[in-house]
């Protein structure tokens, strides 16, 4: 399997993108910002299509759009934690913009437009070239390192914002910085698993880790490990099974690990005895 260059590229990019997703995802889940991650993944779609319609590099559109919207959402919400109605309203409009760019792009480029849209929506990890894979790995690694650098104060301010502010931590700046890292990861992961599926890599490994342990550092590591493991297994599955798209396989394994973690923790509900 690894004799093929496209599989080596997929494993290289996939490993680091999954690592970043697992780390960032843990905080996304901890801070209750899964919906923000969902919205940013759709912003990535619109950004990429806008760049494609304007004829510039898709990656530029991805990064500019996600970072701008992340900071905008952070500015709208309390303590850089926007509420879900605000996110929903912005998000609905961003989808509308995506439709606009899609129609401009598809009309302008007779035929190939649909393929690009599908690549953006569902990813194309098996179609990365060597250079693209190295770039993706480097950006994802940088985002992961940035997150690890602010992990300690971010964890504190996520768990107890009041006390964190009391001892002088810049809670608002940390929240914005976190959204910016999330935006970079979302833009990067869009190229690997696609705008519509990256939510699974953010939410599922982190959710499983939260179910398995309450200890934050162990959970963070576990989340990253599950994300990377899901990507490895998913890529192998999609190589072995024809017709199984890589994105679907990766998300399927991640979702299965979440389900297993939930089942492992499940206890029959204790019935209260009527007084």
């Amino acid at each position, binding site marked *: 399997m690894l004799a093929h260059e496209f599989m080596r590229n997929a494993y290289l990019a996939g490993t680091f993108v999954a690592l970043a997703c697992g780390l960032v995802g843990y905080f996304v*889940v901890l*801070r*209750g910002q*899964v*919906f923000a*991650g*969902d919205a940013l993944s*759709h912003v990535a779609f619109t950004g990429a299509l806008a760049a494609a319609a304007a004829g510039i590099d898709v990656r530029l559109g991805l990064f500019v759009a996600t970072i701008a919207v992340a900071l905008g959402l952070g500015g709208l919400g309390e303590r850089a934690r926007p509420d*879900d*109605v*605000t*996110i*929903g*309203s*912005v*998000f*609905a*409009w961003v*989808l*509308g*913009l*995506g*439709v*606009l760019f*899609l*129609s*401009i792009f*598809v009309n302008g480029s007779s035929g190939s437009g*649909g*393929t690009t*849209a*599908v690549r953006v*929506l*569902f990813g194309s990890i098996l179609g990365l070239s060597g250079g693209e894979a190295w770039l993706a790995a480097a950006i994802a690694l940088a985002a992961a390192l940035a997150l690890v650098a602010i992990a300690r104060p971010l964890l504190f301010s996520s768990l107890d914002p009041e006390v964190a502010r009391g001892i002088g931590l810049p809670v608002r700046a940390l929240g914005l910085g976190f959204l910016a890292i999330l935006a970079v990861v979302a833009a990067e992961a869009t190229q690997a698993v*696609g705008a*519509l*599926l*990256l*939510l*699974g*890599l*953010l*939410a*599922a490994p*982190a*959710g499983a880790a*939260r*179910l398995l342990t309450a200890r934050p550092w162990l959970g963070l590591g576990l989340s990253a490990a599950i994300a990377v493991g899901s990507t490895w297994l998913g890529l192998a599955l999609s190589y072995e099974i024809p*017709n*199984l*798209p890589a*994105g*679907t396989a990766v*998300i*399927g394994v*991640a*979702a299965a690990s*979440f389900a297993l973690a*939930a089942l492992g923790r*499940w206890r029959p509900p204790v019935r209260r005895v009527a007084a």
Partner: protein
Amino acid sequence: MSTEFAGLSWNPVSDLEQLTAYPFMVQALEAGTIVAAMAGAIGWFMVLRRQAFAGHTLSVIAFPGAAGATLAGIPVALGYYGACGLGALALSLVSRGERGRISTESAAIGTVQAFALGLGFLFVSVYGGQLIGLQSLLFGTFLGITASQVETLLWIALATLAALALVGRPLLFASVDAEVARASGVPTAVLSLSFLLLLALAVAATAQITGALLVFALLVTPAATAQRLTARPGPGLALSVGLALAVTWLGLSIAYFSPYPVGFWVTSVSFGLYVLVRLATRREAR
């Protein structure tokens, strides 16, 4: 085209006549009206209950439903309703299993959503990549609606609104203060499952018109605007439905005279209104 296309004039009467000259446009307006009334009402409760994320997840679940039905060769409408109904059950299962742990609950909803989309993509690629079909599943075919679809839609909307009217009062109580409602004997768990099922029904019906990704625009934005303007339930609901109707009509009319898609105009008009209202009510909120 037999009828000439004159473009937008300054005469509103002739513009209106032009707008309704084609049957496809009349049907789009009818379907849009039904869908907007239903989405405005359900959306108001969805925003009140802070279930925008669950609503969005249900609306994307429509996509694998439609793709799966196409693959299996069964009627697509069945796929929409089946998938959204199953989605509502799954969501209610994950949120009940983890009561009190909001963060894990949202992780579970996100996982359900991503998995459903992954399945949808699998179905599409097994089917053999009808790319144009994929886009209409995701972004809708507002202008390709048949008269029988409008009729079905009307019945579904009437049923949904009737059911909503039936559970409206206890649902409102349970949404505003779940603890007190539970203590005074309101069956909150049953209500929350039935609300998710109603939401699923509305989403499945709407998604066939607007596409899986854009249902959400009609559900969330008019309701969010209405709740910024008034906290009172009666006027709020009416306002939400009114706004949804207005943005749908405006969006469809503008789209008719412009080269850009309906989805873009509907979302832009409603988002514009939301931003205006947000700016106008900013001072009072503080």
